[in-house]
């Protein structure tokens, strides 16, 4: 039911969104959001939404309480509710925002175009709608009105209908049942394949960057496609598909052969994700320290020959690391810089994520 307060509520949400948009750069680079990610909502701390007034400061840390205890005992869980404690949520307020709203804010602020699903052979989903009528069916689906009308018509035609005593008897042949029709509705699906280098040179700091970047990539793509699959591949000199948890926490030592990851990705796509039916996004995160130049070239060859034609986008995100040459990005740019669906970005610290997301998605592919 519409309430009078809905307008005020909408206005409040609008203000909150504006505030989030203003601070988006900060949110993009903050890990706190990820932990609070619920199923559909993210709880976001919003600052400065309250109205300032003259009030007592933090030094008002004394008061009167009620309960057991002797001098020196701690009160409650340390949160005093003396004169100062009655003020609600000092400075920061937590607001629930749905992931879609968040993605919309992201899209607006970064002026990201809507993604155009590629290809005509989009997958179609089947759905049953109860829109038809049949002569036979279960009693639970009997269409009473139609059945009654038929019975009435039959009785009038056969002269059995008596207006004085209008009793209608529905016979078996009169009965009509609802039935379903299968409707095909087009649906665009997408799969994101995240690949990450977990060799010794990728430390916790680098992984945190990847995690943040992946969160926002996920949020934006989810906004644009209805069903999204995420697959995760880790590699050092060998590659393997892993679950999300492992992806972010696994740590290996040793060298790096990036081509191994691409090989696994090709296998994965061939097996499960036909490019006619899926919008495919491939993201690779690494510090760019590949074992050999020739392997890097091999990667580019694989991309060009086996992947680029099938996928919407290959995004390569190179995170800064204390070790290694970080040369892979140069090879990719040199070999594939002209390809429309290859985009690279460098992320040296959390502040770069903002630009990185923008780079990846500003083409709308």
């Amino acid at each position: 039911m519409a309430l009078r307060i809905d307008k005020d509520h909408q206005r409040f949400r609008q203000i909150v969104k504006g505030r989030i948009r203003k601070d988006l750069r900060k949110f993009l680079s903050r890990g706190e959001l990820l932990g609070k990610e619920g199923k559909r909502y993210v709880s976001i701390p919003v600052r400065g939404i309250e109205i300032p007034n003259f009030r007592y400061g933090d030094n008002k840390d004394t008061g009167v309480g009620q309960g057991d205890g002797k001098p020196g005992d701690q009160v409650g869980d340390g949160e005093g509710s003396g004169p100062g404690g009655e003020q609600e949520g000092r400075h920061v307020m937590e607001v629930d925002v749905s992931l879609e709203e968040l993605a919309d804010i992201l899209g607006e602020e970064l002026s990201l175009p809507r993604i155009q699903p590629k290809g005509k052979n989009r997958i179609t989903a089947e759905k049953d709608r109860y829109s038809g009528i049949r002569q036979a069916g279960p009693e639970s689906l009997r269409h009473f009105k139609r059945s009654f009308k038929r019975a009435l018509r039959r009785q009038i035609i056969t002269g059995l209908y008596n207006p004085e005593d209008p009793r209608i008897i529905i016979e078996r042949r009169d009965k009509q049942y609802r039935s379903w029709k299968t409707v095909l509705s087009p649906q665009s699906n997408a799969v994101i394949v995240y690949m990450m280098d977990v060799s010794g040179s990728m430390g916790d700091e680098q992984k945190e960057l990847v995690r943040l970047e992946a969160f926002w990539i996920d949020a934006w793509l989810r906004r644009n496609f209805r069903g999204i699959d995420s697959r995760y591949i880790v590699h050092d000199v060998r590659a393997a598909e892993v679950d999300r948890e492992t992806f972010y926490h696994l740590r290996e030592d040793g060298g790096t052969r990036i081509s191994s990851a691409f090989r696994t990705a090709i296998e994965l796509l061939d097996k499960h994700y036909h490019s006619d039916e899926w919008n495919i996004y491939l993201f690779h995160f690494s510090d760019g320290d590949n074992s050999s130049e020739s392997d890097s070239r091999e990667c580019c060859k694989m991309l060009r020959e086996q992947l680029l034609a099938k996928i919407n986008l290959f995004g390569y995100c190179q995170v800064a690391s204390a070790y290694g040459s970080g040369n892979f990005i140069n090879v990719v740019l040199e070999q594939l810089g002209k390809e429309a669906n290859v985009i690279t970005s460098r992320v040296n610290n959390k502040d770069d994520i903002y630009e990185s997301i923008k780079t990846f998605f500003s083409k709308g592919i």
Partner: protein
Amino acid sequence: MPLPIRIQTLPRHLAEWVETIAGYARREGLDFYETIFEMLDYDQMSQVAAYGGFPQRYPHWRFGMEYEQLRKSQTYGLSKIYEMVINNDPCYAYLLSDNSLTDQKLVMAHVYGHCDFFKNNIWFAHTNRRMIDQMANHATRVRRHVERFGYEVVERFIDTCLSLEELIDPYSLFMKREPSRQVIKESEQQNKPDNDAVRYPAKPYMERYINPPSPKKTIDPEAAARARGHRIIPLKPLRDLLLFLLHQAPLADWQADILSIIREEAYYFAPQGQTKIMNEGWASYWHSTLMTRYILRDDEVITYADHHSGTMASSPGRLNPYKIGIELLRDIEYRWNTGRHGKEFDECKDMAARRKWNAGRTVPERVVGMDSPGRQKIFEVRRVHNDITFIDEFLTPEFVDRFKLYHYRADPTTGKMVIVNRNFDQIKQGLLVMLANHCRPYIYVVDGNYANRGELYLAHKHNGFDIDIRYAVETLKNLYNIWSRPVHLQAHIDNDMILFSFDGNQSQQQRINEKELPKPAHRIG
């Protein structure tokens, strides 16, 4: 299109209970305006609560924020609003539609306690008893301004006013107040004939056409203020900043209208803040008395006891106004029934003697219930006291001991709150400080023409606690938006006297000493 709020009428059995309970309440001596109960569902209840109990308020996002928070905490089961009641004639009270019958009866009994308090407590004497209509009028007026000047302009101005809304003087209600700006304007306009215009004789109905009114002259605010005889420098430091601004600040008419709306509503709500403990205590005293004496059926006792104790529960470090209020009232009733009051009793420091007070004497005939001296006393208390005088007058060492009150303070080394002691004087002092001015700092208007430059000078009266600097600076910025000349606030911070200033571009803080204080400011501690 928003539907009107009144959609669920009271079911018949509840309507009958309303009658019955009102009867019991009257029999016990409660005296209230007619009380109309309405049923609301969760969502509507959240709306009404966000609107401060009213079905309608002026448009502002803050109500939306309240609503979202209330609804959220209700959805998560963190809180539940059982009832709301508005101080109005007739009183309006709302029942939550899916409460059990026991709860509904409890709420009704509780509501009659509130209604009696609204009608009879002296601090509510000056509140508008047609506030429901008035709030709707305010909403209409603000909407009209929104239509003329735009949503965001008006909203920004309301934000500014709300930032200052607590800067009123609740005690001034008991003095003769100056007429508000609007009244002055209208009466001035009506009484003052246009002297400088040439007038032709005309019949009354032709007057407007033959002698058209001259176009309004632009009003120089200072000249207007002088003409009205208001002093821009108050004789004594003033607490009612909003009134001062209404008289002295260069406001457009719509701005003055909005500011006066905010001020009027602040005065309406002020007594509820001043009497939180008493009001809730009184209502709880009565729901408990009426429920246990008349209303409860055997099978409802457990539910009632559960919900009553839930409302009265206090968590460590938090004082529950319901609990303190009801127990203090019961304590007063008990003391007056057993003669534990008066000069001799108050001055007796021997706890043992106090405990055995009057033990040997004959017991008066009626010691409980109606017409007992204790009951008469608490009726008197509910008539004349507010929270501060209530605590000041009736808190006893026995009470503090029995209800295990303690005084706590942050431990300087760990920063954690720890119990300091159970000293009666300190606890009483602590409670009084907590209640003073609804736990907001006392801010005074000292000078409206500071340094002879038309700047506004405010002062904080320090009573042991510093004000929050960050908020003070932000609030000063809002004040500047209204005053439109530099604004200053003098406040004690860490034993230094600091002058906070905002001149429209930047804010600054400087240390000042006694001699620099403008004239009346030296009188503020």
